[in-house]
């Protein structure tokens, strides 16, 4: 079975699940969404199934909607930092918005998540395009979509330059010469772009993975340079992104029988429709396991970004039944074979752009 294509699986841990009414049917208390324990419990489920990574959505504004939807959230990167020391295998990929946050802070924050998780950090880099976020900062006008995307691309470039600005082995602690660092191995990035400039070097040494994994959504023009692309539009995906690890968004509603799954879906839809975008599956964990390799092969996908409709319910069934079935079919790892997120995803060692070849 070793020749079967190996899938990569990430899971979205947003709110009480992907469906807007998930919080009403989940056994989880709404207040739990503002604790570390909630995210730890779900990340542990994903880790026990040796999934590649979990994601956590974020914006610098309140979620749209009224009283009946989940509103409010903690900083996603800090939430994952708070579970990093208590997990050991699962990749941690928070959304960070690049439009208002300083690239320098972003770079050190992700590097530090990589240190705290010992090489399991990534980011889902997203520009912010809402007027609400603009008025929360009050220092610029709403960027056009093109500008926001271009800036996102610049930020992603610069944070990687900052990660590289300390070469590996820059800390030498050389007693005879009294030098703590070899400053030949530190580099000013001297970035001057359209939107900002950064001098560098970083204040944080190069993180364990060199480059924590940068993921973007497939609707971003920058996606062409990214290592991991999360796509909602599967058609032609491989053609559009020939080199990236492609994971298709897939919302799931699971139950032991197909009828029960459809019943769960209807119960949720009685409150609100499912959010648009991405694939969706309603059925049994076993049928889902049969479906995933087929879908991946048909569309040239590397895997899926699973979006459980309700947490922990759909994640629990997915990890308890779908994953073992995928393992039995030889299309998913039995256990982690590496320790870093780059290793899980089969990404090579990140080259340092400043190091001499």
């Amino acid at each position, binding site marked *: 079975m070793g020749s079967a294509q190996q899938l990569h699986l990430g899971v979205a841990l947003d709110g009480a699940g992907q469906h807007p009414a998930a*919080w*009403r*049917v989940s056994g989880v208390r*709404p207040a739990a969404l*503002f*604790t*570390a324990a909630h995210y*730890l419990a779900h990340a542990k489920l994903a880790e026990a199934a040796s999934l590649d990574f979990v994601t956590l959505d974020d*914006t*610098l*504004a*309140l979620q749209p909607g009224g*009283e*009946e*939807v989940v*509103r*409010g*959230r*903690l*900083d996603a*990167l*800090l*939430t994952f*930092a*708070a579970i*990093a020391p*208590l997990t050991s295998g699962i990749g941690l990929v928070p959304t960070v918005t690049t439009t*208002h*946050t*300083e*690239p*320098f*802070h972003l770079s*050190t*924050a992700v590097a*530090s*998540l990589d*240190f*705290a998780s010992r090489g399991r950090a990534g980011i889902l880099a997203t520009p912010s395009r809402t007027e*609400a976020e603009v*008025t*929360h*900062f*009050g220092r610029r006008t709403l960027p056009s979509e093109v500008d926001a995307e271009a800036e996102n691309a610049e930020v992603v470039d610069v944070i990687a330059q900052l990660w590289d600005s*300390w070469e590996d082995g820059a*800390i030498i*602690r050389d007693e005879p010469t*009294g*030098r*703590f*660092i070899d*400053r030949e191995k*530190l580099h000013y990035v001297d970035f001057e772009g359209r939107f900002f*400039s*950064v*001098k*560098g*070097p970083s*204040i*944080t040494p190069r993180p364990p993975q060199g480059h924590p994994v940068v993921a973007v959504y497939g609707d971003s023009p920058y996606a062409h340079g990214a290592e991991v692309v999360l796509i909602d539009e599967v058609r032609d995906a491989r053609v559009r992104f020939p080199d990236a690890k492609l994971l298709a968004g897939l919302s799931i509603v699971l139950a032991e029988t197909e009828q029960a799954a459809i019943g769960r879906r209807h119960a949720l839809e009685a409150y609100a429709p499912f959010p648009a975008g991405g694939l969706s599956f309603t059925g049994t964990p076993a049928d889902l396991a049969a479906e995933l390799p087929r879908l991946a092969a048909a569309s040239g996908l590397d895997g899926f970004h699973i979006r459980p409709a309700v947490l922990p319910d759909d994640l629990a069934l997915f990890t308890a039944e779908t994953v073992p079935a995928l393992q039995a079919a030889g299309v998913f790892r039995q256990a982690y074979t590496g320790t870093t997120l780059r290793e899980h995803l089969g990404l090579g060692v990140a080259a340092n752009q400043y190091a001499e070849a």
Partner: protein
Amino acid sequence: MPKQVKLAAHFPGVNNTTVWSDPRSGSQIDFSSFEHLARTAERGKFDFLFLAEGLRLREHAGEILDSDVVGRPNTTTVLAALSAVTTRLGLAGTLSSTFNEPYEVARQVASIDHLSGGRAAWNVVTSPDAWTGQNFRRGGFLKREDRYRRAEEFLATVRELWDSWAPDALVGDKENGVFARGIDRFVHSGPQFDIRGEFTVPRTPQGQPIVIQAGDSDEGREFAAKTADVIFSRHGSLESGKEFFADVKRRLPAHGREPGELLIMPAATFVLGDTEEDAHEYAREIRYQQVRPATAIQFLEQVWSRDLSAYDADGPLPEVDPDPDAEPLTWGRVRHEKDPLAVAAKWRAIAEEKKLSIRELVIEVTARQQFVGTARQVADSVNEYVQSDAADGFVLVPHLTPGGLDAFVDDVVPHLQERGVFRTDYTGDTLREHLFSR
């Protein structure tokens, strides 16, 4: 009950306090170092762990300084990660009010307060220099005079955000479909910030996370008197501590505050020995490790603003005087002395009187408050400083990463507990409770 001592642990990171040449010195970056210090501080029932912040690597004479420990992780990320490996310890981080925006700082500190169950503190600093600004979109736009104006409005704005969710806004009524109700729009319109909207974080366990101030000017002290919960000061000696304490506490009534509402916690180093002589000998060794010949010359160059590399650190002070008009040679270290000629004159007098070489002089003039002695003696001194109102407690700065606090916790804390001036266990869950409940 005697006045209770407050204790915090400073992570020994970037500076020449940190002795990297000691074989016991570990990584200042790896998370395990932070975890070790945090667990030790919590074992010692400390009020909080404290992280400083630097946003650009220090430079000297146009080059990155390579003689001291440099490199540190991001403050808020480390604190959030530490919330996972501690349960009671306060988690205090420095975040500049110059190179951040209120919405983000409010959100990060509030997030840490939630994630830690009410243990977050923010040390508001006001770094003014354009040199650091080269790392930020904001650049170096802020004039020195404006930094406390921005800091004050920044903090006020952050507090408006923290207060904008009603305490009971998180309704969570599944039956009737009410997740949250009572999220007020904030509107802040002032000279520094003109922002409005909705905050994303519910009211935190502490309601208002703890605010610390570190900055020594008259404006800095006024800012603290008006609004901070704790001052992190550099006035660690008995005399200057008493003066600072009295000065700051005197300012409180004008802001409608009681002396007990603002705690003064100077930075302090400590060296322990089995005997008093051992401790002093060890302290002397540490000073020579901290101030190597190159460090001594660089330190002098900071004041002289001249290239003094031709001078021998073991020889006498240079005959030339500082260049009062020159650009500083060192960037990234706060200068508390404003008049270089006066400083040089003072140092010459000290060197002459005590017959000191450059290196010896630097060791002498850069000595900060050091508690040196046996564990019992150090406990007695700490307590004496607190009972005589030179401080409310200390932010202890060990010289070794990450094990530098172990001996203090194991040996000194029990003496303080015996004297009834330090808690034997936490009595509350939040940092605010540790600091302010009697």
